[in-house]
């Protein structure tokens, strides 16, 4: 059985635990083991803006926990992915910097060795599992139009992330299509959700969120599919606030990718934690047999 050290970060346990729930169910179905790291805490992302050594040490701490488990690190959040992937690469390539970081980590009896990889869940599904294998488990094809939202930090900066095509990515689109859904094209597909400036300038953030919701609606999408808990917060939990700010209505349900895949695998809405998604939807749209009974 393939196994990964499993990192959920902060946003997921705070307000998006259904992303965690659906990922676990889907991975179990695919015969992939997830080893919990309950005291992992934060990836250090925000310290990239505050203090470089704090950022490096906080990220290296989380990676060192996966090293202890001798497993690659599977990450659900794109922000965590950007932070951990880049720090892992930087420290592996720079022994002098690694030594300085390890001096800090000795404070908490940990050491970064550089022995594991950091992988976003979409990357694991795309590269390690593969469409062919996933397809075997699809028993309830979902006949809807979905708009893939890739977000920023698992594609960019592309010279470091080294995954998919940063301008015309296909991984999430293909993963959507394997569920039976149509992954539609829409204007400004690579646009950021705006989450990163929410605290600094809420209006600017909501205008970005709203721009994408508008583009997706115009293109006729039934749902948006995300690969990051914070993008999900912006489009789903904050959709009402964005509608109020822009005096416009969208009403687009937003699913974490594993929720869509899980429904296609035959899990019911509750098993995928869909009652916690904020934007209302008609359950019929997912052709979900167990729910109809």
């Amino acid at each position, binding site marked *: 059985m393939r196994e990964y050290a499993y990192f*959920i970060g*902060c*946003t997921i*346990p*705070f*307000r998006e*635990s*259904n992303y*965690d*729930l659906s990922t*676990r169910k889907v991975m179990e179905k695919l015969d992939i083991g997830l080893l*919990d790291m*309950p*005291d*992992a*805490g*934060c990836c250090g992302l*925000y*310290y*990239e*803006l*505050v*203090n*470089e*050594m*704090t950022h490096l*040490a*906080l990220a290296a*701490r989380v990676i060192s926990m996966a090293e202890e488990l001798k497993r690659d690190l599977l990450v659900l959040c794109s922000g965590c992915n950007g932070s951990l992937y880049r720090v892992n690469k930087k420290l592996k390539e720079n022994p002098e910097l690694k030594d300085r970081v390890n001096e*800090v*980590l000795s*404070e*908490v009896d*940990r050491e970064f060795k550089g022995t594991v990889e950091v992988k976003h869940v979409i990357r694991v599904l795309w590269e390690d599992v593969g469409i062919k294998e996933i397809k075997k488990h699809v028993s309830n094809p979902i006949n809807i139009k979905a708009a893939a939202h890739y977000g*920023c*930090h698992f594609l*960019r*900066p*592309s010279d470091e992330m080294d995954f998919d095509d*940063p*301008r015309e990515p296909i991984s999430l689109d293909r993963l959507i299509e394997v569920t039976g859904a149509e992954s539609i094209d829409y204007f400004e597909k*690579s*646009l*950021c959700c*705006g*989450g*990163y*400036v929410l*605290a*600094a*300038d809420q*209006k*600017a*953030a909501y*205008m*970005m969120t709203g*721009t994408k919701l508008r583009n997706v609606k115009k293109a006729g999408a039934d749902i948006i599919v995300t690969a990051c808990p914070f993008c999900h917060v912006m489009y789903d939990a904050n959709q009402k606030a964005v509608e109020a700010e822009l005096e416009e209505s969208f009403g687009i349900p937003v699913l974490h990718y594993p929720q869509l895949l899980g429904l296609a695998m035959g899990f019911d809405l509750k098993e995928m*934690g869909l009652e916690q998604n904020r934007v209302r939807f008609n359950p019929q749209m997912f052709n979900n047999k167990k729910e109809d009974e």
Partner: protein
Amino acid sequence: MNLQEEILSNIDGRTLNYCFSCGMCTGGCPSARVTDSIYNPRKILHRAALEGRLEEDIWLCTNCYTCQERCPTKTKVADLISLMRRIYVKEKGIPGFIKPLIENLGACGFTARIGDLENKRRERMGLPSVKQNQEVRRIIEKTGGGL
């Protein structure tokens, strides 16, 4: 150290020298678009290189890296903005809107206060609990991270 020296002492910062102010970064920038170019990465880089000044506008970067992807000279625009934010913090302290995150990290090891309430919800969903930790606090203190 003045701003230019700080920037040039950093490996990503040195790419500031590649910039010829073409504005590709700003043309594709979502923040520039929704702020009527009050946020303008071309100007921010230009100002840093020629005047050695930092202003509050650096906090409007969404960190989406579109600028850096599109830059024809491979200037690390987004990484430069992050670097300028760290220099800003060194000079003027941590901005008010980031402080709560840092306080939460110090208190529980997460950027939000995660505790019994969240774990009860997780338990109802059949999910394992997450634990608060003090290691994050100790690392922040050891590295002068502002606690």
